[in-house]
């Protein structure tokens, strides 16, 4: 049955197609693991889910990573990677705080937009370097990771942004909730829906998948490869910038360590969520669930009483398992598709003779 769905999806009824696609999707599998983690932890310690703090933390903690993972997904789909998002986040968070303290009369929305634009510029630098010098994004963004962090350290010095530097209304965003759902989580979800919608329904979004699926074919096809890749990096940078603003609102203080190591979490979240590291497939929904899972596991393991070392090991094992699973599944799918082709071909020949 699953073979038929793979080779001839149109033969199935639309409901079965959608249902079959859902059941086989990586998103559902990762989602199930997430639910399992939450349920098990809650059994051990009911306050993990049922206290008002527990509920809020469950939703609020992943908000940052959610935004970063959405941007990272867009870049990974094109067979690139952006390792500078953690530094971009930190630098933008500091930039946000400085805007508030140096220009107290700026409206909050203007600061948010400026933060977004600031991140976009940093992303543009990445994109232009990658597209212009034809150097692997891994190397370029590893360089800008250090450069952006260095700019941050030089600019901030021993200075740090404190809650007192930022307006109360802005900081309130970090704690406010609408129908028990934290505002920052809503921001993350809105970003997610927007990016997911673009990737699925816009020509540009589909071209990103095509470029990652086979970069050489994309050039032969006449796709605007350079422009799309630069665009992906700009979007990723802008979202990292937004994450920086969210960081400032959430924590109220920005020190030079802000966003340290976040880039690897963002890549990890995307990979766990089924975004192929070689590009061409995966969704932001998967990356989002991956982000939730990553953050939630980190919070759940101490509750269950597992030591610090094992927490990291579990996350590492999860990433490796996700990649191995990807390889196995895609190899199996390819073999099945080829086998199905051989079969029809033999039938054709026999039918002809």
């Amino acid at each position, binding site marked *: 049955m699953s073979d038929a769905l793979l080779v001839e999806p149109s033969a199935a009824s639309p409901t079965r197609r959608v249902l079959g696609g859902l059941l086989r999707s990586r998103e559902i599998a990762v989602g199930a693991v997430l639910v399992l983690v939450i349920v098990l932890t809650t059994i051990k310690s009911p306050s993990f889910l049922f206290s008002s703090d527990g509920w809020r933390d469950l939703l609020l903690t992943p908000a940052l990573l959610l935004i970063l993972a959405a941007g990272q997904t867009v870049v990974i789909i094109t067979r690139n990677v952006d390792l500078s998002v953690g530094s971009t986040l930190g630098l933008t968070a500091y930039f946000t705080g400085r805007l508030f303290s140096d220009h107290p009369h700026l409206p909050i929305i203007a600061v948010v937009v400026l933060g977004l634009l600031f991140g976009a510029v940093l992303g543009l630098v990445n994109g232009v370097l990658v597209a212009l010098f034809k150097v692997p994004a891994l190397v370029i963004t590893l360089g800008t990771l250090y450069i952006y962090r260095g700019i941050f350290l030089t600019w901030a010095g021993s200075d740090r942004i404190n809650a007192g530097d930022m307006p109360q209304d802005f900081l309130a965003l970090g704690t406010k909730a609408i129908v028990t759902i934290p505002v920052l989580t809503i921001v993350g979800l809105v970003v997610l829906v927007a990016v997911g919608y673009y990737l699925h329904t816009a020509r540009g979004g589909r071209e990103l998948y095509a470029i990652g699926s086979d970069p050489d074919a994309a050039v*032969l096809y006449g*796709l605007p490869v350079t422009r799309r890749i630069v665009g992906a990096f700009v979007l990723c940078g802008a979202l990292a910038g937004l994450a920086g603003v969210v960081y400032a609102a959430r924590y109220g203080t920005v020190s030079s360590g802000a966003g340290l190591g976040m880039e690897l979490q963002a890549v990890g979240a995307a990979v766990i969520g089924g975004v192929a590291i070689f590009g061409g497939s995966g969704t932001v929904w998967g990356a989002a669930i991956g982000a939730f899972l990553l953050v939630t596991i980190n919070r759940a393991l101490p509750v269950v009483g597992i030591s610090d070392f094992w927490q990291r090991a579990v996350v590492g094992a999860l990433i490796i398992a996700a990649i191995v699973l990807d390889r196995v599944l895609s190899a199996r799918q390819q073999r099945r598709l080829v086998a199905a082709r051989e079969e029809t071909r033999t039938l054709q020949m026999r039918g002809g003779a």
Partner: protein
Amino acid sequence: MPGTAPEGGAALELRDVAKSFGSVAALRSGSLSVGPGSIHALVGENGAGKSTLVKIVAGVRRRDSGVLRLHGEDVDFGSTAESKAAGVAVIYQEPTLFPDLSVTENIFLGRQPLGRGRRIDRAAMYAEAERLFAGLGVHIDPRRPAQGLSIADQQIIEIAKAISLDASVLIMDEPTAALSGVEVERLFAVARGLRDEGRALVFISHRFDEVFELCDTVTVMRDGEYVSTDAIAETSVPQIVSRMVGREVAELFPKTPAEIGDVVLEVEGLSSLGTFHDVSFSVRAGEIVGLAGLVGAGRSEIARAVFGVDRYDAGAVRLAGTPVPARSPRSAIRAGMAFVPEDRRKQGLVTDASVARNVAAVIRRGLSHAGLLTNRDENRAAGPWAGRLEVKTSALDMHATTMSGGNQQKVVLAKWLATEPRLLIIDEPTRGIDVGTKAEVHRLLSDLAGQGMAILMISSELPEVLGMADRVLVVCEGRITAELPRDEATPEAVMHAATATVHHTAEGISA
């Protein structure tokens, strides 16, 4: 006779187009004139410059000089997007689809039907794809991923793409190379339909029966140059063949007879799903066995499997009677195999390293003292081999990347010969090498066979195979369809076997 197609009314016109890659001239003087409502055949040996000409029209490469006109207007395509916008569609020998995307997306990418708010209208897109496939008379599920499709189906998708683009010029680069009889008939019906709509088609093929069945005009190319253009009705196969070859086979490829010894390589029932099936053959000491066939027939894949680079599902490989384990090039080398791959820059050489280091690379284990390897050791080991092969580099520490294709090939050979192999597998020994050096490489292979080495040679150049091989194995669609001793290996016999399954099924259908 040039200019059969009306000069002014040509849909596509090329005059004296030239293109070089470094010192190798891929196209010296390409000319072609195709009228609307015509199917124009472009024939020539491998390396005659057809593919380069196609790439120039497609906008993949820029010509160095010459005239390129589309519907009478001078054009200069800097990218494939530009040529596409001008109404040129190209179907490459090996179609370039995006494996992760659905069949339908592959057709409409970049110009999907849009619904409200400039969102892609998927329902309309699938319906349009269904309509296209129905028009082409094929059954392909528009929702399935492109991954795993047969070459035939991939080509149909490329054609569907061209039709939906409403291209006025359609170039097909060996579209039938991997098709079965039914699929060829289907393709021809589609091509005639497009011709009757007034489009200009260029059809590149090695199969003369197809050329004569489908096309109305034929242009012959040889060694990157235009030779002739004739109406199909006024020419014949022998005439075209003599123009294509244009030289005596024996002169260029001097294989001296060698004493044939014991069986060195035995391959039995080798199969790999979707690539090749039940391949069995043997190579004896002192013998050169040529592996001939059309591009994409699976020759290189067989060689790679024998050497242990690629996996295979069934079968066995034996070297001098001892089984060689699958998937282990290391044990293949230890057993006495050497493999010179097709793309020597990518797979055969460390281009940034010195000649000596390249030559010594495979045997460095035997050279090292207590795990350390010095330049002196490398130079000492490499010297005699490079000297024997007359590698023209002033010093052994010159970098391989700065050498000509011929010398690079010799370095790769020297590298393998240093392992003193009993079997040499060589894939396209003279691709990208100028004519003078070609003869040297051939003389070398002949010498090696004379010293008792068994050689398995893959080549797409028919004269090379016929001139060099003691025995020719013809591969077609992953199966060995003929085994011809030297005196029976004529171009016709090889070509017939290389397209064998096609004829079989075609006959089967008509019967």
